């Protein structure tokens, strides 16, 4: 297959707009507050679209249809849970964090837990690890879409993607990131909806699609326990813990993840912060509905329509493996290309063009949002606030630009030949943030007894514990989606399954919350002055 001119033109127009936004927002470098938090002048619609684009990474655009492809109907509930996590942020973090109005993600930990240097470092470590995994994942996602557009090799696609992201973040900081993300948010929603309606049109509606899916794989529709014969859609969905765990893995992320929380700092007021969540749902909800339709149709469409099917390639998984081998995508999962391959199967270059633009949009928005979190974290917090580096203090924008380049180069090196582990770690990257920095943030905002000792203990215990249990499950049980202690408790497997399903070791979230509460109850609270200022007054 050669590059289609319509698809190439769609991509060029997209890149010109993004580069244009970067260039026209370059004046943000004149004022550090513009560069850090877009001058706190952003309205709810723009911020809502930007929030949606930043939060929904390639893990959504590539991963959600791929997971439905693999796990069937039960995974629909995960899409529901992720969107349901957005409204929670409206009251839990958006309003109080905007009232507090910090500059960096770690400012709240430094102030609420009354330890300016230690807290910045402790909160910064999991944030850096998570950011690294997400940026690599996003560059890989952008590279995959570039590959689909230009039919170029994967390394060339990665370099092009990284240069464009670096350009607009470097030029306009948070201003460029906000406006480009808002544009990208509109684009990704449009792309997902267009693809969904084309699929529904192809199958003659929901009824036709569901019948085709059932004919292809009747187990697709099975919820855990719903089959009298014990059949399931996928082993991880073989017991209710799989679906309930999957529901909660990503559910709380929007309220607690650094790259979404910092977007609340940019709004013009508290009302705009709350309303921006409403707009994020209006953009994200329909996009996820489109992904749900696409994921449902993926396997049956690939197996019946994709031009590379036939000969030795007899099913969708073999087809995706063949595509992966042709383009040399390193450790990316074969299913990561399923959404693009699905649209290739439909044979409509206009639809592929808009999908590619939407895919580039979602990938680049996430990478840019994380780069902004990390460049402020390292350039301002670590260098300026912790190390007292006078160059970083006196040249805040230069420091952030310097770290933008370093972060992008570092992450691009990993993206060239992505180790499966790096991409896999994006699942852990989500859990680790919630159970280390997320719970102390929520606790600090809403509970007076939340204190410094509990925060230090929670981060110090759950950062290594979450990584260890996740890696143990992956290496010993074959997947991080099995409960890490399964083999010790059930040597012969769990109720016919190899182990107890707990997606991405999701049990760590309630375990960390309980740990944080218990330690807080038995240790010294923070001073009344701190509690008044950084807890009570923020409600």
């Amino acid at each position: 297959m050669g590059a289609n001119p319509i698809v190439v033109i769609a991509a060029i127009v997209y890149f010109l707009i993004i580069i244009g936004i970067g260039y026209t927002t370059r004046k943000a470098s004149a004022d550090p507050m513009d560069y850090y938090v877009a001058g706190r002048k952003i309205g709810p619609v723009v911020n809502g679209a930007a929030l949606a684009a930043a939060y929904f990474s390639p893990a959504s655009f590539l991963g959600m249809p791929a997971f439905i492809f693999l796990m069937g109907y039960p995974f629909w509930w995960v899409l529901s849970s992720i969107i349901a996590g957005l409204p929670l942020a409206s009251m839990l973090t958006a309003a109080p964090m905007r009232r507090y109005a910090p500059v960096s993600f770690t400012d709240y930990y430094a102030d609420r837990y009354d330890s300016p240097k230690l807290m910045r470092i402790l909160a910064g470590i999991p944030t850096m690890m998570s950011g690294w995994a997400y940026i690599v994942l996003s560059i890989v996602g952008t590279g995959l879409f570039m590959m689909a557009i230009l039919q170029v090799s994967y390394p060339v696609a990665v370099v092009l993607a990284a240069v464009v992201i670096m350009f607009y973040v470097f030029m306009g900081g948070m201003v460029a990131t906000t406006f480009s993300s808002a544009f990208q948010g509109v684009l990704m929603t449009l792309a997902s909806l267009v693809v969904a309606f084309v699929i529904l049109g192809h199958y003659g509606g929901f009824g036709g699609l569901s019948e085709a899916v059932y004919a292809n794989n009747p187990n697709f529709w099975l919820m855990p326990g719903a089959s009298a014969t014990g059949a399931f859609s996928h082993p991880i969905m073989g017991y209710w813990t799989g679906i309930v765990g999957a529901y909660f893995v990503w559910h709380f992320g929007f309220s607690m993840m650094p790259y979404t929380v910092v977007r609340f700092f940019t709004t013009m007021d508290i009302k705009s912060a709350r309303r921006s969540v409403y707009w994020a749902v209006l953009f994200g909800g329909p996009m996820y509905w489109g992904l749900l339709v696409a994921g449902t149709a993926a396997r049956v469409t690939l197996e019946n329509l994709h031009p590379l099917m036939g000969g030795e390639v007899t099913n969708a998984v073999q087809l995706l493996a063949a595509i992966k081998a042709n383009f040399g995508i390193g450790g990316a999962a074969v299913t990561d290309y399923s959404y693009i391959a699905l649209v290739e199967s439909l044979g409509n270059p206009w639809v592929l063009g808009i999908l590619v633009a939407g895919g580039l949009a979602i990938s680049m928005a996430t990478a840019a949002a994380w780069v902004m979190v990390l460049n402020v974290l390292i350039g301002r917090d670590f260098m300026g606030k912790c190390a007292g580096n006078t160059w970083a203090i006196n040249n805040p924008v230069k420091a952030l630009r310097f770290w933008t380049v370093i972060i992008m180069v570092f992450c691009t090196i990993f993206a060239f030949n992505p180790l499966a582990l790096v991409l896999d770690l994006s699942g852990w990257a989500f859990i680790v943030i919630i159970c280390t920095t997320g719970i102390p943030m929520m606790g600090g905002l809403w509970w007076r007894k939340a204190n410094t000792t509990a925060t230090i203990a929670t981060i110090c215990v759950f950062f290594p514990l979450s990584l260890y249990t996740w890696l143990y499950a992956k290496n010993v049980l074959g997947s991080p989606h099995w409960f890490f202690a399964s083999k010790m408790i059930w040597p012969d497997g769990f109720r016919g399954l190899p182990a107890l399903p707990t997606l991405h070791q999701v049990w760590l979230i309630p375990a960390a919350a309980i740990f944080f509460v218990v330690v807080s109850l038995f240790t010294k609270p923070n001073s009344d002055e701190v509690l008044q200022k950084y807890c009570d007054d923020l409600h």
Partner: protein
Amino acid sequence: MKKRALPSYFWLGLLLLYGYTFTIMILEMNVPGMTYSLTVGGAPLSFFYNGFVGVVVMNVFLSWLWSYMPEQDDKKKAASEGGVK
């Protein structure tokens, strides 16, 4: 008077969200074929209650509720503070 941290409409919204989700999940796990065989107009009802209500409608409503109601609270608070002055 002790300050209440989160208002009742926040907890009612949570009850609606999790009540709806887990009631349907439990039904789906115990009624064989519910996700595919229960249809309306030839399409599985799951496209409506999960794909449409669960993914879009419920969350648009909750995000509206949790931005509109606090704004009304803020207005009442501002009005009462103005009255005191």
